[in-house]
């Protein structure tokens, strides 16, 4: 049997490929795998190493504003001397000032609450889109992506116009006599939640939609046939099957929301504490590059956990062939 297959395959390929050809094939197939790694190396790992190195330095009133600055002209001995100057003082500093700890906690909390609301709003939208007549779906998808065509900053400014005490929302509610004193939403956490949910909603909707859209509707029918009401069929079938989409959507909202600084800065006012804003202040207001780098490194380490969860969920979804 094995012989038969062997002769068959050699018959199908009359001339064995030359060594050069095979090398070329191996190289091209390697290349395809190498490209994303190269990308990561260039645009993630190298910048990270630079940031990490700055986080181990000391501030200085200089250009750039930290020491030591490695220079190839100084020779190897000077390099090793400078290497010894690097230390973890900035990280120790982060633990000493409660500001940073509070900023991290508050960022994670704000991001988590926002993600929850984004899921709450995004799920029904994605579900409705996935169940809409097939002809409408491209249009609906388009509508979800449409806000990206306007600058993010302008859209956040627009929310300031809506949410401020004399803004559109309050004017509307006052004129409808729903309220008699303006709501104070601007410069509160609520404003940040609204801003984040609004800005990141497409990142929630898209993975949810793709998970829900490829779900076979006959599964729901089968569940109903076996005695499920539509609601219990949703919780037992639809929701568990959309979990990869839920996790992907939550991570795509949560991860950038933790580091978000434009929204808390513009909508949250001065008293909101978020790590992205702290980082921005350290970097631009204090010009303390080493400390802000340390803040960034810790932020990244914090986010590795959710990123791993995301990876794991993706891998599992792929493995299940869905």
């Amino acid at each position, binding site marked *: 049997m094995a012989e038969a297959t062997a002769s068959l395959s050699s018959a199908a390929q009359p001339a064995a490929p030359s060594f050069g050809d095979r090398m070329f094939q191996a190289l091209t197939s390697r290349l395809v795998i190498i490209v994303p790694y190269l990308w990561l190396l260039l645009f993630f790992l190298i910048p990270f190493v630079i940031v990490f190195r700055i986080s181990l330095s000391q501030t200085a009133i200089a250009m750039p504003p930290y020491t030591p600055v490695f220079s190839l002209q100084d020779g190897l001995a000077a390099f090793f001397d400078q290497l010894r100057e690097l230390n973890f003082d900035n990280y120790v500093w982060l633990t000493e000032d409660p500001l940073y700890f509070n900023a991290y906690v508050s960022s994670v909390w704000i991001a988590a609450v926002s993600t929850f609301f984004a899921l709450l709003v995004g799920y029904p939208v994605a579900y409705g889109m996935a169940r809409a007549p097939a002809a409408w779906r491209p249009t609906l998808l388009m509508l979800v992506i449409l806000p990206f065509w306007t600058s993010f900053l302008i859209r956040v400014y627009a929310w300031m116009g809506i949410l401020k005490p004399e803004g559109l929302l309050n004017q509307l509610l006052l004129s409808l006599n729903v309220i008699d004193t303006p709501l104070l939403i601007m410069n509160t956490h609520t404003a940040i939640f609204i801003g984040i949910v609004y800005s990141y909603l497409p990142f929630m909707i898209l993975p949810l939609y793709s998970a829900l859209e490829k779900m076979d509707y006959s599964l729901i029918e089968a569940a109903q046939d076996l*005695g499920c009401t539509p609601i219990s069929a949703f919780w037992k079938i639809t929701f568990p099957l959309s979990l990869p989409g839920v996790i992907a959507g939550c991570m795509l909202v949560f991860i950038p929301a933790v580091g978000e600084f434009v929204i808390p800065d513009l909508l949250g006012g001065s008293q909101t504490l978020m790590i992205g804003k702290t980082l921005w202040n350290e970097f631009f207001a204090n010009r303390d590059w080493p400390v802000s780098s340390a803040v960034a490194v810790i932020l990244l380490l914090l986010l590795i956990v959710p990123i791993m969860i995301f990876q794991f969920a993706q891998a599992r979804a792929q493995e299940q062939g869905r």
Partner: protein
Amino acid sequence: MKSLGSIRRSFAPWNDPSAKPYISFENVTKVFGDFTAVDNLTLHIYEREFFALLGGSGSGKSTLLRMLAGFDEPTKGRILLDGQDLRGIPPYKRPLNMMFQSYALFPHMTVESNIGFGLKQEGVPKAEIEARVAEMLKLVKLEQFGKRKPHQLSGGQRQRVALARAVAKRPKVLLLDEPLGALDKKLREETQFELMDLQQSLGLTFVIVTHDQEEAMTMADRIAILDKGNLMQVATPAEIYEAPASRFVANFVGNVNMFEGTVAAREAATARITGASGAQILVENAGDAAAGNTVAFAVRPEKIKVSSKRPEGTVNAMQGEVYDLAYLGDMTVYHVRLDDGQVVKASALNSSRVTDDPLTWNDRAWISFQPDAGVVLTR
């Protein structure tokens, strides 16, 4: 018409005027947009019957089943189950279960959870569910596969899980949409008999959809032939085969030879039919065909005899030439081109090893058949 009887068993509530149908479609019409998928159809199915819906692709079989299960409502007409109008009753309250054409197994659950799903939904105690699931796994011979997920099974195994899941709740009626489509021939035949056993031992009513006529003939007590949303005939397999009601049914089920012509004379049950070329056929069981009607006399290949000489004492004999011949071991199939151009199929059982009348390609040959060998079709 002579009674053809049921070969299978003496179960024929449809012949009993006092028997009450268990499932009734009454003037059911289903329209999708401007397309009529089921057209004013009336059909009765009896308790414990094994009923097959047979028809080509798009003939409305699945639509009928889906209306019965409650996933679609009829546009017009009503469906009764045990005398109760099903309109407005949601699928989860109907005492019937369906095995889906696409299986619709829950991909995130193990085989066991899939099978136990309906029982769990019903609130059956856990120990009982486990026992029933084990019993079902044994029934479909998947004992070792209980802990697997559907994507870890072969197509045939998935199909058996789908079957086990549909049967686990012991529904009064089991609806099966092309249950054996993905199985290979051998497994398919085995499963057909298993399904029949299951239906007998559990005393269930089965409504099975198929487009495989052999499958329908093997399993069903009665078969409904559908075409473009219309019911063409409802009868036992033997009646469908031996006494098709129309040209469509005769052509749809098995092979058939059609002798087209007009009724020249009619006398009691006997009629004389004149073909286009002037050939005369004498037939019995002429049914309601009156003189002057355009009719077809449908004769199955195995009822036609092929010989080199004109057989003695046969009224219906025509001459032609052997145009094709296939030796299949147990029988030989002849294609004889008659002198008027019609090609007639005849099959002869090879009951002895040597034939005294060997015929081969391009030989002149006679075909002959008895006056009661076929049926007269007016439609």
